[in-house]
């Protein structure tokens, strides 16, 4: 028997079954009843909160042959066609995939046709923020003069990436994270319907772990059912998730606050021996600390004598650690370091002193006074060639051959004195020059490496150039993975050489430390993470995002 994920089998078929979004479903039902459905909706919200589901129910309700109080009947042929995914009038487009791009391309042509069976043609565009500029333009033109029979539902997890021109033409609904109590209720229904025995404690644990996304919750329940012998228990869920019981979190916080570094490290090692997932543990720690902090701020302290400042200091370190662990090949090490720092705030001071000495050293390196000049075996041309040879025109595919690397001495056009750019640690900031030439570069990329162009055009990474190193900062870690391919980097390095001469190095990074000038505070990952743990209402942006912590 084929496995079908619970969240697919138990996708709500009516507005009434959609959990936790009454403020939206009620408005939609009213609009349906009054015949006042808009031409375009924008559904924003975190993943798994019901955006696509709601869009589909809306599509059914619009075309249903026997609707009742704004709900689809779910058994007429139009409803069934949508449920089975073969309705010609309800078109789902995944903007994240190639198929999406193709479909948008001829959207303007297609919307002219009237619906074949239903009353309305409904276009559901998922992850709409992923559309390319071209596709956005095509969409915009359609939205400007929408034919009467068309309804657009644009869904996105990242509304801030959707152009304002599009936003202003849509009625916007914000889907919120589903509350644990609502989630538990739905989980209970699904479990009952799917004949899964699960106890109450386990349900709450799942609801907590899912962080407001019903799809994640159902997926955990799925795994629980597959793992459990008969009844799914809290222990099963802990095993699957690799999470730990509350008291362990409590002891860890106490060790950290009391400066018991050794005990904290011992505890982590014990958890690792138990096969616990250390990144999840770190995540749990942040949630736990957050709860402590909120309790303390609201005067519900439990007698623990940890100051708010200290709690915040711990929280900040662990939030950062959790982020870093995601990409590290040695996540355990990242956590251990964070715990040492968390329990020994005084080490911060000595680190600062060292950093200052490093800065001094870098200055020396940059000015060339130390110590390269004393190292004759390291080749370094005393006089850099003022006009580096441009790549020969016959070289067409840079990925085929090695780009010669001359690590030292980089000249970028005229006017930038070469001796200042001797080592990358002190490399000259040439971001301006590179940014200026970037549109030209993009032109070449468009012709030379289309997929890369689409990626860069879509994600618009901010850019920094130090010496001969160009760093591209991507907001989304997913995009870094897409961009960070040797093939792409080699190509970009070659192209940079072609445009600015000399040899270059390209790095793609997740915008952990983007240049301040280009970083909007809302895009700061620490801010996003803070919103995740505290909720948007509690996080206030001050002028300098690095100081919102109030802790040094």
């Amino acid at each position, binding site marked *: 028997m084929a*496995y079908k994920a619970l969240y697919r089998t138990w996708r709500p078929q009516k507005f009434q079954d959609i959990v936790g979004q009454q403020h939206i479903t009620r408005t939609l039902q009213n609009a349906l009843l009054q015949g006042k459905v808009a031409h375009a909706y924008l559904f924003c919200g975190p993943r798994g909160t019901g955006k696509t589901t709601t869009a589909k129910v809306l599509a059914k309700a619009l075309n249903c042959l026997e609707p009742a109080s704004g709900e689809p009947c779910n058994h007429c042929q139009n409803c069934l066609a949508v449920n089975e995914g073969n309705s010609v009038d309800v078109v789902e487009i995944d903007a994240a995939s190639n198929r999406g791009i193709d479909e948008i391309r001829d959207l303007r042509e297609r919307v002219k046709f009237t619906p074949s069976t239903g009353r309305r043609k409904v276009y559901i565009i998922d992850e709409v923020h992923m559309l390319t500029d071209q596709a956005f333009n095509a969409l915009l033109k359609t939205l400007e003069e929408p034919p009467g029979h068309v309804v657009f539902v644009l869904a996105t997890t990242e509304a801030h990436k959707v152009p304002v021109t599009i936003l202003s033409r849509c009625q916007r609904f914000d889907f919120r994270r589903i509350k644990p109590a609502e989630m538990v209720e739905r989980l209970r229904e699904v479990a009952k319907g799917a004949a899964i025995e699960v106890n109450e404690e386990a349900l709450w644990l799942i609801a907590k772990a899912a962080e407001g996304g019903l799809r994640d919750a159902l997926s955990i329940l799925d*795994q629980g059912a597959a793992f459990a012998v008969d009844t799914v228990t809290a222990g099963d869920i802990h095993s699957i998730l690799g999470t730990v019981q509350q008291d362990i979190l409590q002891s860890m916080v106490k060790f950290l606050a009391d400066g018991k570094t050794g005990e904290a490290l011992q505890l982590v090692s014990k958890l690792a021996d138990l096969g616990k997932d250390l990144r999840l543990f770190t995540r749990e720690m942040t949630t736990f600390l957050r709860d402590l902090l909120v309790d303390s701020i609201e005067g519900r302290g439990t007698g623990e004598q940890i100051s708010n400042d200290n709690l915040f200091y711990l929280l900040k370190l662990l939030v950062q650690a959790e982020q870093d662990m995601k990409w590290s090949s040695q996540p355990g090490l990242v956590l251990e370091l964070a715990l040492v*720092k968390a329990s020994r705030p005084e080490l911060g001071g000595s680190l600062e002193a060292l950093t200052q000495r490093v800065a001094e*050293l870098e200055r020396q390196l940059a000015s060339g006074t130390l110590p390269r000049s004393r190292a004759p075996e390291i080749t370094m041309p005393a006089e850099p060639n003022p006009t580096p040879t441009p790549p020969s025109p016959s070289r067409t595919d840079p990925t085929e051959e090695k780009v010669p690397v001359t690590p030292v001495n980089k000249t970028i056009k005229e006017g930038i004195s070469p001796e200042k750019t001797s080592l*990358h640690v002190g490399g000259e900031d040439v971001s301006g020059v590179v940014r200026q030439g970037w549109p030209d570069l993009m032109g070449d990329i468009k012709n030379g490496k289309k997929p890369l162009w689409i990626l860069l055009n879509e994600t618009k990474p901010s850019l920094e150039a130090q010496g001969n190193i160009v760093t591209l900062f991507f907001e989304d870690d997913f995009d870094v993975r897409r961009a960070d391919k040797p093939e792409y980097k080699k190509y970009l390095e070659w192209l940079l050489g072609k445009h600015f001469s000399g040899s270059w190095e390209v790095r793609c990074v997740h915008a952990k430390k983007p240049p301040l000038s280009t970083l909007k505070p809302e895009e700061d990952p620490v801010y996003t993470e803070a919103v995740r743990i505290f909720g948007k209402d509690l996080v206030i942006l001050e002028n300098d995002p690095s100081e919102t912590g109030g802790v040094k």
Partner: protein
Amino acid sequence: MPRINEVIGHREIVQTLKNALQRNKVAHAYLFMGPSGVGKQVVARALAGALLCESPIEGDACGHCRSCRQNEGGNHPDLHIVGPVGTSLKIEQIRELQKQVQYKPYQGQRHVYIMEKVDTMTQEAANSFLKTLEEPSGQTVFILSTDQPYALLPTILSRCQQCQFRPLRNQEVVEGLMRYCQLDKDTAKKLAPLSGGSLGRGMLLAEGGAWPLREQALKVSQRLMQMDELEALRLAEELSEDRGQAAECLAILLLWFRDLLIYHYTEDRHLLMNQDKLEMLLDQAQRYRPGLLLAIIEETKQARERILANANTRMTLEALLLKIHSYGG
């Protein structure tokens, strides 16, 4: 080919798979996610073996039937292994697969596909494969694996039953090293902590491939605080001959300084990774203040990341060694 019952570690996953087999509730697609070298492929093969076995015992492969023998020999006609060609898994491979699943399996009830490194699928391939996942044909089972689940289309993730593999526990690596590398218990115990929970890495160490590099790295650790600038630069040049080796060398150094730091606070030898070099470790432990260790670790960590992100190896190492030199001098 191991049987499911012989898999080392991953208790939850093994249990889940055994339940599915016994309850006849096998999913049509599994996604094995987790770091490399922890056993995703081993479990995938064991699951495939159980699925293809002609007379399974409590869901697990019998080990004797024709299918099991074919699996042992790596030539079962209904077991297909698909992996990246060059750097990516390509649309042609997916098309080929889609053609194959149309045909009846040669001898059993089903085709089993083991698909490795699915994160390398091109977008075209992923989109095309999505269709296959949406409309599974017959009894075909897909076992996908990746160490970078973040790089997958969410639509692929959500259509598979997900199994999250974690690093192995120390004692499990010990068990594995004893079983597969015929190490004695003491040697295995010394070696296991260096594997970082990856039996694959542990086995590599056991085969001796990584030892010379480690010796070199540890020599660096000893000279680090005494060397002058010239020596630091020479060392950087020496280490930078091979990017991969340089990164590996820094990884070794990281574990070393991590041990020094951990020992400073716990004085517990059992928590240390470099079990085979305790004497040298304890000797060095007295020379470092924790603040300095922390700084060295941070710098080394960053340098390693830079090198892995394709920065110029020699310059990165030069900067690192000169920085550390300036801390000490």
